[in-house]
């Protein structure tokens, strides 16, 4: 109980500090710390799957993206400062936010207790999917459509980033050139960590069927195992014109949709798995999707081709 209260207090303080930080770097560092505290909170709430996703995507990947944005901003001439809102406007915004926060707090206390939940029907229907992890059952069977569409959104995000390629850079190698690190901690990590990280990612992916884990967490770790050697200047990403690279990020959603359509033909409903085939099909989807998502997440961090340095 006391530990939980301390955790809540720490989260509030870190969140507030992140909002009030003057330096962008400080704000991002605090944001990452906030994500890690949130991970602990999810663990305390016994939502281990959510905790792992929060750590991998919320704190890890978002943190790296934000740090990259801070670094880019630092190298560019700062834009003219926008007119800050006047004191009356600031007060109005603060009052509005406080009112919304108070209303949300009050309303959450008014929600029915125990909360109406679908946990019982999920548990009752889980055997039909041959899976042991109810979260995977929801993501890959009961609400598989949402997962499918989210995997398409990840691909679309790569298109969004590539669409911002500066003039003259199209088709080239993405990302700013990273100076080669011959020694130092990054060079060591970039060499030593990937074998271990890849094994851990595979484990998280494999146990996801029956225990907390799954493709998004595994993909985030795999992406990090590619980004580390890239940051150390040890590997060069393939050019974005490379067909195999584009197929790699597209093949996951393509296979997912193909299996879904096969279900429509054979079983009479999109994303229905034939009896006895649910687990193998879900594992096939998860493995291929992990590869696609890992590469896509890494490409999101690496960014657009950089004309200045490449051509």
């Amino acid at each position, binding site marked *: 109980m006391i530990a939980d209260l301390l955790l809540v207090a720490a989260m509030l303080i870190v969140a507030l500090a992140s909002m009030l930080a003057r330096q962008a770097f400080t704000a991002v560092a605090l944001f990452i710390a906030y994500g890690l505290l949130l991970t602990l909170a999810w663990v305390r709430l016994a939502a281990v799957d959510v905790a792992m996703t929060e750590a991998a995507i919320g704190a890890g990947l978002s943190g790296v993206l934000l740090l990259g944005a801070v670094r880019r901003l630092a190298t560019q001439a700062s834009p003219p400062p926008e007119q800050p809102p006047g004191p009356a406007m600031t007060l109005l915004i603060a009052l509005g936010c406080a009112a919304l926060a108070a209303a949300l707090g009050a309303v*959450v206390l008014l*929600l029915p207790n125990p909360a109406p939940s679908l946990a019982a029907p999920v548990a009752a229907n889980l055997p039909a999917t041959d899976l042991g992890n109810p979260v995977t059952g929801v993501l890959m069977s009961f609400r598989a459509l*949402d997962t499918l*569409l989210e995997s398409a959104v990840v691909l*679309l995000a790569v298109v969004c980033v590539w669409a911002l390629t500066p003039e003259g850079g199209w088709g080239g190698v993405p990302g700013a050139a990273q100076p080669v690190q011959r020694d130092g901690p990054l060079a060591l990590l970039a060499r030593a960590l990937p074998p271990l990280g890849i094994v851990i990612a595979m484990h998280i992916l494999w146990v996801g069927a029956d225990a907390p884990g799954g493709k998004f967490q595994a993909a985030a770790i795999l992406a990090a195992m590619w980004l580390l050697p890239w940051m150390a200047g040890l590997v060069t990403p393939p050019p974005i*014109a490379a067909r195999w690279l584009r197929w790699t990020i597209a093949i996951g959603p393509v296979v997912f949709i193909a299996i879904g359509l096969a279900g429509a033909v054979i079983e009479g409903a*999109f994303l229905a798995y034939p009896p006895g085939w649910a687990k193998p099909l879900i594992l096939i989807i998860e493995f291929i999707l992990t590869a696609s998502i890992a590469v896509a997440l890494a490409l999101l961090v690496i960014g657009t081709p950089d004309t200045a340095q490449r051509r």
Partner: protein
Amino acid sequence: MGMLPMLAVMLPVLAMVAAVPLGARGAERLTLAVLPIGLALSIVIAVIVQLTQAPILYHLGHWAPPLGIAFRADGLSAAMLVTTAIVVAAVAIFARADFGTASGAPERRQAFAFWPLLLALWAAINLLLVANDLFTLYVGLELLTFAAMPLVCLDGSRATLEAALRYLMFALLGSVLYLLGVALIYGAAGTLDIVLLRERVTADPPVILAIAVMTAGLLAKTALLPLHLWLPPAHAGAPAAASAILSALVVKGSFILLLRLWFGVMAAVPLPDAAQILAGLGATAILLGSVAALRETRLKLLVAYSTVAQIGYLFLMFPLLAAVPGVSDIAAKAWTGGVVQAVSHAFAKAAMFLAAGIMAARFGHDRIAELGGAGRAMPVTLLTFALAGLSLMGVPPSGGFAAKWLLLSAAIGAGQWWWALVILGGGLLTGGYVYRVLASGLRSGGAAVPMSTPVTWRRDGMALGLAVISVALGFLPLAAFGLVQVGQLDLAP
């Protein structure tokens, strides 16, 4: 039969995913190949809904709600599916001149991005039309935002990047607020299926707060005044083909979701006071948006401000429906009027943006005062603009007239005559800004006669076709509009 709505969503999703590895030229050809299939699917859905007078239901993976996700294509879905397919098809053919890739030519950035983004928009809108689950609808909103935002800044200039970033901020704020409401509703009712929620929700504080924040978020995405600030620079700065889709369809996606919330989830809980506020904002948007369009000096910005005003009309249906819940002639008129406004505005605004794009490309600028000679050099383009303008004004016979007439008579029938005044005043102001463009275009050119660059018949044909449809909607017998009543949850007993 039940599979059709699913196919209408999955066809563009699959095409979008496959378009990325195929590259710009392959993506273009794939898009042109799936357009007729998607159009046929949506027409068949509309015919089935009209003939059976019942929505098409489909359970994904055989899992019934609340555990699984259902698709539900009702009359509103069917009408908008057909509208979306036609507009997307016309815009795709129009866009080949800008984003096509000749055989053997190197891939260009804009061409690579445009086709998957167009397909993603189509998929997102179809998903928003048929999904019956509030979280699946959230995924649809995300797909819509991430497809629309890059289209705004496709030319890569600093101004359009700023417009796109501002659009993204508004859209993400909207997404966050919507998701917050989804969580509250799940906590209160234990399901996210709209049909089930209709039975379960009551006017409890958590539900009311959820609907309030979701409405605020969706208004930001729909660009209802005063949350419209992002729209004019974003829609005016995008390439013409993208502007047409953004103004015609993208803002309607979040609007349809609002209808699902207010007259689906909350069908049994009318909120007449809040509905008056929404319509009040709509009326303000009609008047201020039209005045801004009247004063605008650039053609594309004028058309964008016209969108701000025309969105306002959509919100007039809210108090008319909330005032007379249940089966009623007035509610039916208000509902049909609002939906026909959404459909006819989609055709008219797409035509208008395409026409504006043709003129801007031809003149090399879009200053309204210097459009002299357009009437002689490009009569078809100016005719397109005029026809689309007539429909927006609500001059009979046109789709816009049918919509505004239905809303007007519903307003008078419900005893809320003040909305009738707004509709009439808005029509006059619309006439004013359309006339400004036509008058300038019909002046003899003088020194400013535009250089003759090849404007293909195909581009003019597509824009004119859309404008003709927006007018021709006015010739439909009133019975045809009965389609949009099918499966309405607030009329269900």
